């Protein structure tokens, strides 16, 4: 059985978000006055509006007050948002995934009661995961134990509280998050994940990186560094479950982010097709020249393949039985999708910009931003090459020793 038909609900989601992006996000995001300056502040008004449309709680179960969208639906929505503004989309992708993972899957009923009402009530309430990305550094430690990271946040138990100290250089969503899930080291071997509201004394969100300076911001969304100084967290705010289980849950966030990446590639491609139909050189519209035609075909091929990879990865995460039943490969398909999409969309953005000639590098035009955004996807968190090594380890059947599986 192989069925790629979308449900009426999925199609409706797509159309609704596409309309929102066309009528509200693109006019704001692609305004030359916003495109030209280096700094591009988060479109906060539109973020709230998207939240009011339910996109913040997209993947949260209906019982909990969300839209209950599955992974595939989330990817369909995030592609549309990514075509409008990657930062906006990245924030929503993060919150939507974490809402499902934290509230539906990892919290105790008690914890849900404490944190869910506020999340539902306040459209400006976003979520962040602060900790070592379970896969980060894995590539560089290819076929060897993970290197100790001195940067881990430490927690020591005092009575009924954890006392948290340390800092993380980068936490996605940190500048907008009201609730952090913080992964802490609790001793030589142990890890725990603590729920820490933003207003907890001792938690500080640092100034976000800037777009200029010797070192510049190289991420999407609303991330920043987070520091903990004698930050006291009640012991009952620890999440249950093993580090491996948490890692498996967080993998759900990968396909929607790849879908944001895909959306940006689609926006670049669509702009190029539109322009190629209008621009006339060499006695005909440039789309009728072989050189432009093949560029656009290359874009279309890459985008189709990326979408296939993303949808398959998202669907497979929701259907582990398909792997167990040998219908789908047991490779880390979310990593496959992410690595392929980042590369493919970068190529798409560059090819699309080339169709625009000199207009492709002008700062008041969208193409140069699409190129920049696509490069950030290739080189953020870990490099493209190192991410591939995670796939290579899976191919070799390499299993990391349990002690550093966290």
């Amino acid at each position, binding site marked *: 059985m192989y069925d790629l038909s979308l449900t009426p609900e999925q199609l409706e989601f797509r159309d609704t978000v596409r309309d929102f992006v066309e009528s509200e996000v693109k006019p704001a995001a692609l305004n030359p006055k916003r495109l*030209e*300056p*280096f700094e591009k502040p988060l479109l906060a008004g539109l973020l709230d509006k998207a939240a009011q449309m339910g996109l913040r709680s997209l993947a949260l179960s209906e019982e909990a007050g969300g839209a209950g969208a599955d992974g595939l639906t989330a990817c369909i929505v995030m592609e549309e948002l990514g075509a409008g503004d990657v930062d906006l989309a990245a924030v929503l992708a993060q919150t939507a995934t974490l809402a499902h993972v934290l509230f539906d899957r990892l919290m105790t009923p008690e914890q849900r009661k404490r944190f869910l009402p506020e999340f539902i009530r306040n459209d400006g309430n976003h979520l962040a995961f602060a900790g070592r990305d379970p896969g980060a*550094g894995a590539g*560089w*430690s*290819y076929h*060897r134990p*993970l*290197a100790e990271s001195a940067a881990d946040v430490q927690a020591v138990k005092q009575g009924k509280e954890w006392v948290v100290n340390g800092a993380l*250089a*980068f936490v996605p969503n940190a500048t907008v998050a009201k609730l952090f899930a913080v992964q802490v080291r609790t001793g030589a071997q142990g890890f725990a994940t603590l729920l820490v509201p933003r207003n907890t004394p001792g938690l500080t969100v640092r100034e976000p*990186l800037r777009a*200029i*300076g*010797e*070192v*510049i*911001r*190289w*991420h999407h969304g609303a*991330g920043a560094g987070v520091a903990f100084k004698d930050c006291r967290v009640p012991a009952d705010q620890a999440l249950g479950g093993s580090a491996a289980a948490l890692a498996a849950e967080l993998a759900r966030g990968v396909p929607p982010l790849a879908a944001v990446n895909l959306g940006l590639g689609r926006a670049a491609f669509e702009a190029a097709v539109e322009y190629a139909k209008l621009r*006339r*050189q*060499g*006695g005909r519209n440039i789309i009728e*020249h072989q*050189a*432009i035609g093949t560029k656009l075909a290359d874009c279309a091929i890459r985008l189709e393949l990326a979408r296939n990879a993303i949808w398959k990865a998202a669907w497979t995460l929701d259907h582990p039985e398909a792997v167990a039943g040998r219908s789908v490969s047991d490779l880390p398909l979310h990593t496959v999708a992410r690595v392929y999409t980042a590369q493919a969309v970068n190529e798409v953005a*560059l090819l699309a*910009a*080339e169709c*625009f*000639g*000199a207009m*492709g*590098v*002008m*700062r*008041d035009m969208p193409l*140069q931003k699409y*190129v*920049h955004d696509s*490069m950030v996807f*290739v*080189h*953020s*968190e*870990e*490099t*493209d*090459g*190192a991410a591939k*090594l995670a796939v290579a380890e899976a191919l070799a059947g390499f299993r990391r020793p349990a002690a550093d599986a966290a």
Partner: protein
Amino acid sequence: MDFSLNEEQRHWQAEARKFSEEELRPHSLERDQIEGGFEPWDWEIIEKGSKLGFRTLAVPKEWGGPGADFVSQALVMAELARGDSAMSKAFSQNWKWSHLIASACTHDQKERFLKHFLADHRYVMGRGITEPNAGSDNRMPPEDDPKAGYRLRAVRDGDHWILNGEKCFIANGSVGSLFFVDARTNPDVNIRSGGTLFMVPKTTPGFRIGKVFNKRGWRFYQNAELIFENARVPHANVVGDVGTGSVKAGKGDTTGGDIFGDLELAANALGVCDDACQMAMAYASTHKRAGRYLMEHQLVQLRINEMHALTEALRSYVMRVAWQHDRKEHSANAGLVMNWSTDVIQRVTRLNMEIHGAEGCMMIARVDKLVRDAMVWTHLAGDTVQRVKVLRRLGKGARIAAGANAD
């Protein structure tokens, strides 16, 4: 075969390297990160370089210039570009038109313009050919469409020509004192026979600068609109003959136009690649991932190898073309090396980014700058028309059609 440089060539290379390290590189990122199209420009840098001869490098000795040969010019462009690609281009853009003046202008025109150019440290030049609807069509006018290409109109009025129209993306547009402008003296035939090249000083009545373009890369380098509203240009400023097209206007120009411009972009790319290699080596030997220096990871070793191989191959090709130019052996190689430099500079700057990308949520700004600067090549040196155009030269063997490339 002899790859050694002579004393004069070594002298220019050393001078350029010193100037680049001391005066360009320290300001490179700072100028690049200034908002706006015009604002990154800095006259002080141009003046300092001009005093050392880098603005007038290509002016022949008989006219009082340094008269450096092509090998020296290539070496200087690469050295300056290693400090800042856009600044290097701001200097060498003048050499292109020095070549043109030297080879195609009358004695009177040389007297009137070359002397000013030599005397004034702030005198820079540009050429206006591109228009909003005429980019590729100027480089390769379609045979079956006589109206394709630039439309800026020139109408004779006694001893003057009246120019009306608009040019865009014009190099040095916002800062130039003199522009070579391609205009239609006959709008009903193709630009090869209906075009004429004019010298337009910035003080020309009816001539003004429009929008200054704000670019992703080469931010220091200026590109602007030129607006002509009944601009009055003396007939004495026509380069070559009326109605022979800009290609023929530069017909004595066996060293300027395309021929120099192609070498220019390739040599500039070489400097950027040298910079990227140097950055990658320094970073990989000082930063660790998973307990080992980046340099010790195969992933990085292979990338560094590729960066150096491509850069050294580009160097050989650039220097060979410069050497051929000095021997007046013009071939398709100039075009090919320019096209290929597009691929090399993209690849090498991206490999550098891949190596530095290990920083995670941040990027070293200069790494990104090199990638942004490199992107300019894709529409300037390596677009389809620039690649296809070379086939004409391949077809003609050693005989070349010079002149149409203006950017």
